[in-house]
């Protein structure tokens, strides 16, 4: 579904992604791992059209997408849950969620999706009128996830979605991710919580030094000593 080939990205003179190639097959969940500053967020932002790449290509369902604007990517179905919960602080929770569907026109279905999000995060239902900026950190993270789902993505990019969520909620989220995946949603997941990554992803890629240095099934990741040594630095 999503094929990244020889992608290069830099901020000014600092090159962050040197040559990244990997694939996210349709209907699968793929984990992207890497140390702090290895370029994971940059990768997702490039896929979202927020950051421009300086070389390489991004194929989404066989069509070249590199260089498209962010709203185009959303319209094509690639939606991101950004790192650091970028909510709209002065708007209500409900508005935040509804605007997640800003590109959609099917008002009826939107209602249903909204209810689904509230069902997924019952906490949010209780605070739907409150301004998102006044929520606790974890509650904001829920808003960020819910908002992305409201866009009805076909490919979801999640940048550390479990960050700041309580273990129970993480468990629920994992269930939701799996359920969505079963309904056909393709997911590219950046995670530091290796438990979450292992629980949902089928395959994993490790980003290091601007390149993919390891690719393999996610299942074995936790027990793979070689990987952990290079990646965890143990």
């Amino acid at each position, binding site marked *: 579904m999503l094929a990244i080939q020889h992608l290069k990205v830099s901020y000014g003179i600092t090159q962050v992604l*040197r040559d990244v190639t990997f694939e996210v097959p349709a209907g699968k969940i793929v984990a992207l791992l890497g*140390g702090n500053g290895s370029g994971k967020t940059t990768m997702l932002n490039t896929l979202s059209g927020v950051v421009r790449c300086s070389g390489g290509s991004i194929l989404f369902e066989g069509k070249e997408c590199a260089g498209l604007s962010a709203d185009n990517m959303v319209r094509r179905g690639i939606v991101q849950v950004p790192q650091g919960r970028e909510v709209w602080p002065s708007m209500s929770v409900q508005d935040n969620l509804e605007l997640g569907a800003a590109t959609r026109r099917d008002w009826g279905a939107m209602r249903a999706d909204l209810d689904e999000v509230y069902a997924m995060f019952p906490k949010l239902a209780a605070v739907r009128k409150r301004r998102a900026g006044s929520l606790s950190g974890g509650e904001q993270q829920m808003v960020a996830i819910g908002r992305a789902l409201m866009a009805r993505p076909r490919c979801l990019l999640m940048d550390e979605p479990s960050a700041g969520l309580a273990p129970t909620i993480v468990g629920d989220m994992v269930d939701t991710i799996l359920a969505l995946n079963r309904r056909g949603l393709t997911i590219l997941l950046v995670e530091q919580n290796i438990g979450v990554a292992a629980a949902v992803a089928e395959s994993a890629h490790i980003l290091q030094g601007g390149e993919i240095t390891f690719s393999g099934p996610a299942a074995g990741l936790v027990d793979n000593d070689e990987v952990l040594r290079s990646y965890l630095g143990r």
Partner: protein
Amino acid sequence: MALFGRRNVLVAMLLFAAVAPTFLNAYYLFVANTILIYVLLAIGLNILVGYAGQLAFANAAMFGIGAYGTGLLQVHFGWPFWLAFPLGALIATMVGLAISLPALRLSGLYLALSTLAFAQFTQWVFLNWEPVTFGAGGFKTPPISFAPLPISKTLGLYYLSLILVMVLFALAQNLVRSRIGRAFVAVRDGEIAAESLGVDLLRYKALAFGISGFYAGIAGGLYSAMLNFVSPEGFDLFQMVIHKAMIIVGGLGSIVGSVLGAGTLVFVLEALRKVKGVQEIAFGAILVGFILFMPGGIIGYLKEKVRGWEEPLHRARASRRPPVAATSESSEVRP
């Protein structure tokens, strides 16, 4: 340090300024003196706006208060300039401190408007408190004398301005590279984080307002002496625009930038005399052009093009490591 290093350029500018009166005619000397006065203003304003991040619009008013203070003390009480001048600056400082109080509660555009309202109020006082300020017609100030020094009024004022610029530039430059400068920037970039690191908001906001008031007051005093005439027009919103433009064109958050910005702006205003009739259009276009093509101001451009032009908020040590280019090695470093 490179030939075009910051220090060399500054020294060259200073030398030029010191000998300039020997070959400048009266008009250019007047322009040069105006630049020096605006440099002071711009430095003070940049500390407040560029460093401490307070979007205040009262600088022209404080400039005016300095000018009126200096002038009126001479006119009403017959004080000599040398006494009225520092006192005028002190009054402007006090006013600056006073308007920092609402600034503690206000931020962004609300602060902008409330200080703008204060500026309008000041104008109104200049206009309406006729027994003291002589109202809209303004008043003449007595010519300043440099006796017993054998130096003319114009030349004396020029060198007085130059000395003040040198001293106040150095003070400001030292200040922003100290913990106080960093506290200003901390207040600008995140009030809550600043507070939780022990930065007292009230204290530092007041300090920034006070400093900019002081610089504006000094500039105002010199201005009144240079023009020998004080009236409300000199301190209106057009002035405000010029002051703001100086720090944007020079570069926010840079003392050297303030100097360059003030120089550039006065120069542009004088150069625009050439395009009679369309000065406004040209001025607007130049302003927009500067902001578009030099978004970081002249200083931002220099920092990019000339090595050694960085303006750190601490005293750069000789043994600086070069900035890192590659970054991905960071996955190897550990906590």
